[in-house]
């Protein structure tokens, strides 16, 4: 007989027994104790030969099965009239109990399979993080009821969600960071924006995307465009918003998408 299944694949002795029952097409309602015991021990021995660690639960079940099997081979002792023999364990009862245990366990295993399907379906559904509504909240101490307040658990869960979210955003930014900075592309985009607007635009208007890489690329693009006289920058006073307008060289502007890559 071949053993191709590792013991790790089982959740415990009951799980292993269910596997053997299925594999050898045994009727769970009429378990042949001798046969199942032999198969179980055979499996365990193979695992031991491979020097795999067998959890104590498996060995305990082995002992139980052996005890059951040997008792079934012995004749049932005659009970002296009027006196119950407390030490005698009816192997038939033990077999019934094991059957019931296996059936119960299988029920929950099936229920777990249903839950697993639900879980799979649910893991396919994504949602955005909740919007920050603090802007709408009234910052009022009276608004903080003592009953139904947040628990440490709420805080910990919020923190875990945060860690997941950070992870969600991190790789994305990294991807943008890693790509070649498309300054040429950004130059084209700035020129397009200025031409469409037909008036001076502030730096904020040109690059409101709050991403550092983006700001830097846009800034570099502006510097290149200034050098080409394609744009002019105006600032009325120190710290005033810088306004950007089309320059004399605007009509001659032509930047390949791939030029000016750093």
């Amino acid at each position, binding site marked *: 007989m071949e053993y191709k299944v*590792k013991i790790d694949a089982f959740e415990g002795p009951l799980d292993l027994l269910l596997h053997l029952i299925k594999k050898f097409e045994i009727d769970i309602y009429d378990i042949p104790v001798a046969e199942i015991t032999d198969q179980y021990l055979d499996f365990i021995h193979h695992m031991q030969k491979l020097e795999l660690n067998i959890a104590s639960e498996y060995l305990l079940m082995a002992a139980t099965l052996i005890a059951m099997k040997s008792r079934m081979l012995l004749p049932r002792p005659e009970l002296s009239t009027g006196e119950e023999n407390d030490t005698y364990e009816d192997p038939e009862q033990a077999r019934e109990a094991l059957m019931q245990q296996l059936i119960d366990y299988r029920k929950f295993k099936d229920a777990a399979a249903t839950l697993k399907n639900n879980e799979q379906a649910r893991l396919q559904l994504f949602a955005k993080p909740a919007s920050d509504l603090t802007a709408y909240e009234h910052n009022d101490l009276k608004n903080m009821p003592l009953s139904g307040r947040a628990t440490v658990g709420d805080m910990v869960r919020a923190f875990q969600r945060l860690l997941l979210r950070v992870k969600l955003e991190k790789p994305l930014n990294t991807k943008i960071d890693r790509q070649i900075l498309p300054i040429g592309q950004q130059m084209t985009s700035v020129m397009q924006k200025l031409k469409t607007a037909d008036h001076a635009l502030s730096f904020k208007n040109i690059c409101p995307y709050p991403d550092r890489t983006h700001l830097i690329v846009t800034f570099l693009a502006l510097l290149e465009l200034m050098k080409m006289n394609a744009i002019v920058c105006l600032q009325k006073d120190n710290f005033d918003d810088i306004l950007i307008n089309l320059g004399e060289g605007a009509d001659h502007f032509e930047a390949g998408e791939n030029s000016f890559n750093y």
Partner: protein
Amino acid sequence: MKPEKIRSIIEGLLYLTGEEGVLIEQINKVLPECTPQEIIHSVTRMKQEYEANESSGLMIADFPNGYRLTTKPFIAKYAERFAVIPKAAPLSQAALETVAIIAYKQPVSRIAIEEIRGVKSERALQTLVVKGLIKEVGRAEGSGRAILYGITPVFFDYFGLHDLSELPPLSEIMRDQNEQIDAYDLFYDQYKETIKDL
């Protein structure tokens, strides 16, 4: 209030609350002039519209007494191209069995769970508590005063269930032997995945 307006406000709230979702009761507080029935009716229609609309990537998912706007399952593939979405690792087999037992038998002690599963279940319980799927709901009487566990609202959310009645009754699983064997095959397939020639 016009049904169109009701729908638009609920849609707005669904968007704003995102993954946290919104309770019927909360919608009702925002729209006191509507009855809960009107709200449920409006969401139900919106849900059907989203579902029927091939060109929409959104859908409305239920959780107990509330709703959540999510992307449709087929979007998952594209969302993953967009960002490394933290694949919430699915629960282990041990954790799934343990939470199934708790769902059907709550309140239930660790010992009772271990008796059914035939193995130690401490780690599985710990994982489930940390994930918020189960919690301590009381103490058993008697000397040990063992902790009793029950499921939490997060359980329903995690498995996309409204309430326990959506779980197949345990007795029914019992009745239909053939179905049971099919379900068992599913598990067997998983075993095969771990098969290695020894």
